[in-house]
C-alpha cells in the first residue's frame, strides 16, 4: 500500500542566499546572484561567458577533521545543507542510524577541483608527489562523494542513491527518495544535490555556444529565460537538501510538515543527448500528473527548467502548454541564480516551498519582452501575492533525461 510522503525540513546554499530569510528577500526584491566569473588560472581566461551564479558569502563550516579528510568542496556544500536539515528536523539519533533513513544525493561529477589536482600530479612528472595520489583523493573526488560523506558524518546506514544525471541529478534524488519512502523501503530519505564552482563545466556549455555572453558587463541582466533577448544559460553553484518522511511517522513525532510530495516522473527522450525533446518532456509532465492522480488544471504553479537557451525555452513552453494549457502560472527561478547544475532541482523545489509558505510567487527576473514563441503560457513578470496549493517543478538534462515533481502545500 503506497504511503504518503512529506517534506519536513530543507536547506539550501544558493547564489541568492543561504537562509530562508535571505533567499526570500532576494526573490521578493528581484536580487540576482549572477556575478562576474571568478578567475581560476585555468579556463576562465578562455571562456567567452564571463558570468557565474556565485556563492559569494562565507559559510561557517564546523566539521571535525575526521569528516573533512574525505571531503572536497562539493562535499562541504552537501554536508552543510544536510547538517542544517537534520538540525531543523530533530530526528531521534537512534532512528538516524537505524537503517530506516537513507540518502539520495548527487552531483554532476564529484569534485572537479580534486580531480584536477590528481591529474596535475599525474601529468606533472613530479615523482615525489606520486604517493599523494591515493584513496583519499578518490574519496574526495568520486561521483558519490556527496552522498557518502553525508552517511559517514551522520552514521546513516540505510539506502544510498547517488544519481548523477547532470541537471536532473537532485530532482531524481528527491523523486527516487520519494519512491523509496512511498513504497516502504525506507521511512525517511535525505535528498538533494550539490555542485561546486568549476570552469570546466562552464567550458562545456561555452564550447556548445549555449552560454550567455552578451551581458558580461551587466551580469545581473542574465540569464533571461523566455525573454526575446535571452542569449543562453549561466552556470552556477550551490547545494540543496530536503528531508522526506513517511507521513504517519512524521505526524506521530510531531514534525513540522512543509509540504507533501504527491507525484514524480522521470523518462528519457530515447535519442539526441543534447536537444530537448517536446514529446519526451510532454510525456514526463503527463506521467507526473498521473502519478499524482491530478488533472492538469489542479496545478497552480510550474517552476520551469528554463535555462534561457534559444530553443530549450521554446520547446519547454510548448510542452507546458500542451499539457497544462494556460492554467498554471509559470516561473523560471534560474533567472535569479543561473543554472546550479546538479542541484537545480533541489534548490528550485526549496524556493518553491518558501514561496508556498510565504504566499507569493516571485516573477521571472529579466523577463521584459516575452518571446512570442513562448507566449502561450502564463508568465509571471511581477511579484504576486498568491496562495500556492500545488506546484510542479520540472528539470531536463543532457542525455535526454526529464523529470517532473509535484508538491502540495500541507494544510
Amino acid at each position, binding site marked *: 500500500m503506497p504511503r504518503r510522503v512529506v517534506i519536513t525540513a530543507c536547506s539550501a546554499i544558493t547564489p541568492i542566499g543561504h537562509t530562508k530569510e535571505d533567499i526570500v528577500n532576494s526573490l521578493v526584491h528581484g536580487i540576482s546572484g549572477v556575478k562576474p566569473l571568478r578567475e581560476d588560472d585555468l579556463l576562465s581566461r578562455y571562456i567567452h561567458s564571463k558570468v557565474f551564479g556565485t556563492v559569494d558569502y562565507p559559510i561557517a563550516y564546523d566539521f571535525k*577533521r575526521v569528516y573533512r579528510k574525505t571531503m572536497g568542496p562539493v562535499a562541504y556544500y552537501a554536508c552543510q545543507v544536510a547538517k542544517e536539515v537534520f538540525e531543523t528536523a530533530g530526528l531521534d539519533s537512534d532512528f538516524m542510524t537505524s537503517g530506516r533513513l537513507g540518502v539520495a544525493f548527487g552531483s554532476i561529477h564529484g569534485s572537479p577541483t580534486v580531480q584536477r589536482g590528481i591529474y596535475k600530479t599525474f601529468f606533472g612528472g613530479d615523482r615525489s608527489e606520486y604517493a599523494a595520489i591515493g584513496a583519499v583523493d578518490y*574519496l574526495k573526488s568520486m561521483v558519490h562523494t556527496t552522498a557518502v560523506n553525508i552517511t559517514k558524518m551522520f552514521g546513516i546506514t540505510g539506502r544510498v542513491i547517488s544519481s548523477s544525471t547532470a541537471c536532473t541529478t537532485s530532482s531524481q534524488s528527491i523523486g527516487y527518495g520519494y519512491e523509496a519512502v512511498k513504497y516502504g523501503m525506507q521511512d525517511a530519505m535525505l535528498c538533494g544535490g550539490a555542485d561546486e564552482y568549476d570552469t570546466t563545466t562552464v567550458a562545456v556549455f561555452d564550447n556548445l555556444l549555449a552560454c550567455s555572453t552578451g551581458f558580461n558587463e551587466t551580469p545581473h541582466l542574465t540569464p533571461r529565460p523566455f525573454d526575446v533577448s535571452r542569449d543562453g544559460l549561466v552556470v552556477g553553484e550551490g547545494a540543496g537538501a530536503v528531508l522526506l518522511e513517511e507521513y504517519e511517522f512524521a505526524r506521530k513525532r510531531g514534525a513540522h510538515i512543509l509540504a507533501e510530495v504527491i507525484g514524480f516522473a522521470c523518462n528519457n527522450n530515447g535519442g539526441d543527448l543534447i536537444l530537448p525533446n517536446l514529446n519526451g518532456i510532454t510525456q514526463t509532465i503527463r506521467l507526473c500528473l498521473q502519478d499524482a492522480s491530478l488533472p492538469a488544471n489542479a496545478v497552480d504553479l510550474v517552476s520551469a527548467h528554463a535555462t534561457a537557451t534559444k530553443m530549450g525555452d521554446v520547446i519547454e513552453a510548448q510542452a507546458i502548454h500542451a499539457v497544462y494549457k494556460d492554467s498554471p502560472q509559470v516561473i523560471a527561478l534560474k533567472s535569479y541564480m543561473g543554472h546550479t547544475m546538479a542541484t537545480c532541482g533541489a534548490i528550485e523545489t526549496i524556493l518553491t516551498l518558501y514561496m508556498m509558505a510565504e504566499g507569493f510567487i516571485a516573477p521571472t527576473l529579466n523577463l521584459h519582452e516575452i518571446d512570442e514563441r513562448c507566449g502561450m503560457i502564463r508568465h509571471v513578470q511581477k511579484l504576486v501575492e498568491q496562495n500556492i496549493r500545488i506546484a510542479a517543478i520540472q528539470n531536463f538534462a543532457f542525455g535526454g533525461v526529464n523529470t517532473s515533481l509535484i508538491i502540495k502545500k500541507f494544510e
Partner: protein
Amino acid sequence: MTRAEIEFEILRIFREEFEIDHPGMDDHLREKHNFDSIDAIELLVAIESFLGSELTHPEKKQAMDIRTIRHICDYVEALAKKRDVFTEG
C-alpha cells in the same frame, strides 16, 4: 636525527596534521583516536618528507602493523638507521 627529534616530529605531525593533541605513546591509535587507513597513508607521506627520501613498497607494507605512537617512532628510527641518518643521543 636522534630519537628525541623523531618523537618531537611525530607528535608535531599528529598535532598539526591530524589534530590529535597529546596522544599517549602507547595509545591504540585506531581505537582511541579514530586513526584510520586514510590517516596512515598521509602519515607515510609526512614521514617521507621528514626523512627526505621515499619509502620503498616493502617499507610501506611494514607500516601496516603500526598501532601506537611508540611503534611509529620505532619504525622511523629503523628507517633512519637504514638511511644512515640516525644518531644516538
